[in-house]
């Protein structure tokens, strides 16, 4: 029978680590997936990034010092993996190409079930630079406080506010041009 709960002690103990980690995967996968999916947008990509996130967490479990919440640590790994994925996807290509690719794929994605406005918003988000995209998602959809975001992304609150403001302006402009 699989374990349904886990503690940090169990995760640190080699005897109980595997089972406790399994319980953690079962418990936190939906919220990590949701976070990753908002950034990478497509299910197959989110599945890859999610697996890499858990793999990194498993491989680096001993380096978790406990100076933040375990969920915060996992969140940070997920964000870094998402960012790495985006950077691998389009290392140096133009925004026009990214936008076209996102629009083409999202509309035909069987796992995207958004209305016209939601589709337009996702298209607009896809045009944002990678880090701006992450900041926008955390702030707009998850309503994360800048203070928390600052610790998570190791970036000053001022820079995050500026980044979010720029992202909003770009999205407003995108909607304006699409109208």
């Amino acid at each position, binding site marked *: 029978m699989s374990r349904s709960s886990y503690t940090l002690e169990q995760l640190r103990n080699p005897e109980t*680590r*595997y089972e406790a*980690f*399994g319980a953690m*995967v*079962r418990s936190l*996968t*939906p919220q990590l*997936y*949701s976070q990753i*999916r*908002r950034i990478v*947008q497509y*299910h197959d990509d989110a*599945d890859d990034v*999610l*697996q890499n996130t*858990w*793999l990194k967490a*498993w*491989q*680096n*479990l*001993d*380096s978790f010092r406990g100076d933040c919440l375990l969920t915060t640590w996992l969140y940070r790994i997920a964000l870094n993996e998402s960012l790495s994925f985006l950077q691998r996807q389009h290392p140096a290509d133009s925004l026009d190409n990214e936008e076209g690719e996102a629009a083409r794929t999202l509309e035909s994605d069987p*796992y*995207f*079930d*958004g*209305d*016209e*406005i*939601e*589709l*337009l*918003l*996702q298209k*607009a988000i896809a045009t944002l630079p990678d880090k701006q995209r992450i900041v926008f998602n955390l702030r*707009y*959809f998850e*309503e994360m406080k800048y203070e928390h975001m600052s610790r998570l992304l190791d970036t000053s609150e001022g820079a995050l506010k500026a980044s979010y403001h720029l992202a*909003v302006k770009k*999205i*407003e402009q*995108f*909607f*304006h041009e*699409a*109208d």
Partner: protein
Amino acid sequence: MTRTFNPSQPVPTHDPFKVPEGYFDTFADRMMARIAMTAPAAPVFGWLRWLPLAGAACVTALSLFFVEVTAVQGGSLGEASAWTEETSGTSYEDQAYDYMMMANAHILTDYESDY
């Protein structure tokens, strides 16, 4: 219909991102099967992180050793070493690189001149 984006309006509660049926039910088992084949990074291997630094220290020590040898030989065997350099075209520095099995010693030279 006018389509506008207003960030001060409430965030839509509808999540347009769907997952294949049963995805979350099977994910943990698939993930743990993959993890079972991967050993976690054990602290016992922590010393491996110092390996590159130790390598660099060895190279530096060897370089200093050969510089020292060159200086000592330069005093008593100055003429002989000059002859060796002229005839064979191999400097002590090159010999040091040979000893360290660094066939592409010019790469180091280029690196030094670039930075």
